[in-house]
């Protein structure tokens, strides 16, 4: 007689399968309907790629994309650099005062509700008279992207044995040389993962970008929101599908980096 697996519980498997179906149903719906020939979103009449052509020809969409990418690239670079510096000090400095407080401060944007932070920077910018829409977005995005860059980098630094840095110093490498030739190459997967996460968070952001939205600084999610307000259209589905594809691509890249890093470490 086969012993029943005591760790298994009845119904777990069907429940989990249902869960994953539910998790992917909405995404699948958007993707499928983006190829719908009909102008009405939910009435299927045939296969067509015309909505993709329409989306790519949409100038407002393209300029929103441009703004989003520009903001995301700059914010990612700044956030990653700031996070990298902070992570090095917080993981490598001995008897550092304010270590706990500093870690909390770096992670603060993750802990507090985004709408409050968005309101806060909105009032700040209006008080100091900052009117450049792009600059406002870059500053706000850099702030909330920093913890997303910080966490993977810190994890990587913590996972790396101190032996390697000591070996480098033992072999006559001055501190910065040791960092450049040993530490940085070894934590690079973490830095990439962090930067990628920060980039996606910036690209995806709606709450802050919407509140700071002002002349000439409409990001992609904010533009999509304005389209949704006008009603669901197949073109919207096409745009969403392109966005989904881009997100999944980046997510997969990060996953591969993580898995490879795990195998090595």
């Amino acid at each position, binding site marked *: 007689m086969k012993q029943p697996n005591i760790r298994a519980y009845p119904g777990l498997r069907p429940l989990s399968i249902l869960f994953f179906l539910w998790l992917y149903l909405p995404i699948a719906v958007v993707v499928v309907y983006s190829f719908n020939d009909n102008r009405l979103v939910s009435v299927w009449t045939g296969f067509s790629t015309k909505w993709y052509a329409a989306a790519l020809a949409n100038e407002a969409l393209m300029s929103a994309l441009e703004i989003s990418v520009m903001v995301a690239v700059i914010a990612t670079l700044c956030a990653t650099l700031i996070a990298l510096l902070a992570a090095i000090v917080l993981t490598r400095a001995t008897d550092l005062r304010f270590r706990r407080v500093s870690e909390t401060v770096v992670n603060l944007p993750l802990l507090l509700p985004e709408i409050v932070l968005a309101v806060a920077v909105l009032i700040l910018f209006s008080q100091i008279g900052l009117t450049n829409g792009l600059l406002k977005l870059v500053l706000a995005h850099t702030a909330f992207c920093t913890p997303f860059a910080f966490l993977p980098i810190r994890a990587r630094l913590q996972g790396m044995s101190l032996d390697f840095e000591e070996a480098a110093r033992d072999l006559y490498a001055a501190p910065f040389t040791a960092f450049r030739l040993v530490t940085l190459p070894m934590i690079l997967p973490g830095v990439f993962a962090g930067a990628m996460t920060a980039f996606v968070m910036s690209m995806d952001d709606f709450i802050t970008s919407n509140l700071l939205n002002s002349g000439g600084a409409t990001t992609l999610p904010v533009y999509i929101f304005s389209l949704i307000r006008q009603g669901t259209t197949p073109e919207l589905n096409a745009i969403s599908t392109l966005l989904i594809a881009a997100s999944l691509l980046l*997510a997969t890249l990060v996953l591969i980096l993580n898995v490879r890093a795990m195998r090595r470490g």
Partner: protein
Amino acid sequence: MSKAFRFWGLVPAWALMILTLIVPILIVAGVSVAERGAYGGFNWAFDLSSYRQILYTVGWTDELEFDPKYVLIIGRTLLFAGGATLISLLLALPVAYYISQQSSRLKTILLYLVTLPFWVSMIVRVYAWLIILGNDGLLERIYRIFGGADISGFLFTPGAMITGMVYSYIPLMILPVYASVEKIDPALIEASHDLYGGRWTALKRVILPLAAPGLTAGSILVFVPCLGTVLEPMLLGGGKQLMMGTLIQTQFGGARNWPFGAAIAMVLLILVVLTLLLNARRAGRQMEATL
């Protein structure tokens, strides 16, 4: 590491957070007790009317009348966020436990599948539910195919909002729950059976207590963003079911009552900080209990 680097390495992070976070939040606190400007904005004059407005309206003869409108919104926010958290928890525990039992290869794949939707833009994910739940949407059509009455009105309901919230934040629940469930030594479950406990005893006395830290962490991670959520009430609630996030948003948009928006933001911030402190105290007690 040189003293100079130890200092200058942290300066950019501190400067960024002080300038874009700490100082601005202090300003919000200030604005919440400022006077509303005649044409939007505010004047720096001490005025508690924004907080008074949460509870009372000023009647025709300047008397204060209790008005539950905003208390209701705060209550609804707590209720919906709590409901979404509870549903996420009930879903996450079996799913996380199921994932933890798979081969390491399948585990990686399933965890990847859990996190993947989180990478998809929030607005796209909420929009997808709009298509499914909307008027003449997928759900209504399926309902009609199976002979249901010609109904409509899935959208703009609490159910739609909570579905959207659970969908948006459930990966934040599954990951910590999985992390704690995965660490449970199978021998502990075997020991529980060896000591004459059945499946449900093992669940109640072994798995749940050991998964508790993950369940707590996951609940916080879902509850906090749900409190401040904006997109779900706006798109799936249709503006009929206001939550604090949307209320704040409208004060800085169309309504242009900055001091009142700031006051609501402060209430939201306090609720979140209380939640986080509650967790810290519980975690502390847990530590003491294990020591």
